């Protein structure tokens, strides 16, 4: 286990360094970031000032080295010291990129965790039920509904749900409230975003768990278990379910990775100030350090979840050896 984790973490760090290098060079080599950051009414003095403040007058590889080492050991700017992990300062707000991201993280994490619980419970539950009652009316209804729901985009469903519950005055507008100070407000504030965000996921997990369960029920070890007289429920839940966990966990890892990196459309639709919304705002204001920071952060989350998924395989499937 430990050598596996060590090797995978090393691989992930190499990938991240490469990814940040590619992104950095594309971002900072393409145009003059100072010009991009100060927009359409820009004077030569402003540009020079930005250059000096951000060290943009140095050659590109030096700039990248400064950026990279800043992440690990911190970095000194003319405007002050930026302690590790330092992703630089925002062009637009002049704030520290890392602390801005950390401010936004609770919103995004709450959204991701709550949404994941919704789509796992409903999606897997409905999928298992449909597989258990395969061919019945119930199965057909579940399959049909999930097919339709998987085609409804967040940006279509969001306004409708807001119209029914919020504009009519039934509920307050969705907002993020700190969980530790007000759990009830936290729950009510995020309930609609969770439901809307997880609709497509719920539908996909229903379809996926149903089809993998049906596949698993045709496996030989399941047939043997049935043949030797094991109770059907036990075979279903212990044998077939365990086998279908592998593909589900794979997809779940990918989905969680991208959800924790910011659910842009959901956050935008419900005006929640999460990491996704931060990314959109930074892109529209051409705030490159912020965009770069969010991108590296999200990629890191995806890689972390990949490692978790691969480690989970060993627990689910005894045939998998982490070597």
């Amino acid at each position: 286990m430990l050598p596996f984790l060590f090797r995978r973490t090393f691989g992930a760090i190499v990938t991240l360094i490469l990814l940040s290098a590619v992104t950095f060079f594309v971002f900072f080599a393409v145009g003059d970031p100072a010009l991009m950051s100060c927009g359409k009414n820009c004077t030569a003095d402003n540009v020079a000032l930005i250059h000096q403040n951000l060290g943009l007058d140095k050659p590109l590889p030096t700039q990248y080295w400064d950026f990279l080492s800043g992440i690990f050991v911190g970095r000194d700017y003319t405007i002050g010291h930026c302690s590790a992990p330092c992703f630089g300062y925002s062009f637009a707000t002049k704030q520290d990129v890392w602390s801005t991201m950390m401010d936004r993280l609770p919103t995004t994490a709450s959204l991701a965790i709550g949404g994941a619980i919704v789509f796992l419970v409903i999606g897997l539950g409905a999928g298992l039920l449909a597989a258990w009652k395969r061919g019945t009316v119930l199965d057909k209804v579940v399959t049909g509904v999930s097919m339709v729901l998987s085609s409804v985009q967040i940006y279509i469903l969001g306004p409708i749900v807001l119209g029914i519950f919020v504009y009519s005055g039934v509920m307050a507008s969705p907002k993020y409230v700190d969980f530790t100070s007000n759990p009830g407000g936290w729950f009510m504030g995020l309930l609609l975003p969770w439901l809307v965000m997880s609709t497509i996921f719920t539908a996909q997990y229903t379809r996926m768990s149903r089809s993998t369960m049906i596949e698993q029920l045709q496996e030989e070890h399941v047939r043997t278990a049935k043949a030797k007289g094991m109770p059907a429920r036990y075979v279903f839940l212990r044998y077939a379910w365990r086998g279908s966990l592998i593909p589900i966990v794979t997809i779940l890892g990918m989905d969680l990775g991208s959800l924790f990196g910011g659910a842009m459309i959901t956050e935008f639709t419900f005006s929640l100030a999460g990491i996704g919304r931060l990314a959109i705002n930074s892109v529209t204001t051409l705030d490159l350090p912020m965009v770069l920071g969010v991108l590296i952060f999200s990629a890191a989350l995806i890689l972390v979840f990949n490692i978790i998924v691969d480690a989970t395989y060993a627990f689910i499937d005894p045939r998998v050896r982490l070597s």
Partner: protein
Amino acid sequence: MTSPSQTAAAQSDTPGLEPEGLKKEKNRKGGELVGRSPGQLMWTRFKRDRTGMVCAIVVLAFFVISALAPVIASIYGKDPYTLYGSNDPSLFDDFGFPSGPNGGISGDFWFGIEPQLGRDLFTQLLYGMRTSLGISVVVTVLVVITGTILGVTAGYVGGRADYWLGRVIDFLLAFPSQLTFVAFMPVVVAIFVPPSDETPTYIRVVALILVQWALGWMGLARLLRGQVLSLREREFVEAAKITGASPWRIIRKELLPNVVTPILVQSTYMLPLFVTAEAGLSYLGVGIMEPTPDWGRLFRTAGDIYENDPTFLLFPGAAMVIFVLCFNLLGDSVRDAFDPKSGR
């Protein structure tokens, strides 16, 4: 998913290696044995699938209507740019919302008019679909070509090329796709125009295509590589090698026909994803900008004004749900037609 051997058995068109008699279907016509190509078999099965046929027609209708947008608009007599509200103030109430019921739907404005600006929604939707579908079709074609070439070549050549392609795919998969699209859009645009200038629409279109293409091909390439990896060990490939066929010929004549099924199935699943992704980017305000009509941007407008004018969402929303739903059902039908064993 289809195992490669099933795929190959179901639709290998290498003559002589798969006697027609071994096929499951009885190819009898008037007491005489008539051979049918795998394509014909697929078509016969597909025609029997009612859902598939209906969806194929609906999807086709979407493409035809989008392609004919200018023609339909000229018959209808309006365009998506004119601010009809400012020519005729009676269309609006005091707050800039359509004065008629249901978002101003009338004989003149079939789907109503846009609040504040007073543009015609029907033509906006037509042209918007044309923009979105056009971009998505180009992305799909590019992705399929790239994925096929890289995947099949890596699978067949193996060795170092295969190893490096695997690393590149792993690397690109580490990019959070939606966020990367959003993040790279302004940068890719900046490659073509300096940020101080106005960006022409076609540059945004090119940028949208480029970012989606760059991060879209890996899934297909990896899938095809896997299929080719097992196909290249089969006898017909060995036979071709012994007769002295060049690698290029083997890829083209022996391997490609055997991976047509996954390519077709994958591309029918891919296209609606690209459509919703493109619409999502425009919804977030980084895709196609005003005044060019775009499907996704209609949802942004609809979301902003939903409280006062909910009808605005109805037509663009219904159109997109129907389009994506039908395309997904079509994908399932195509898969079933190629591989009857997969069954739902």
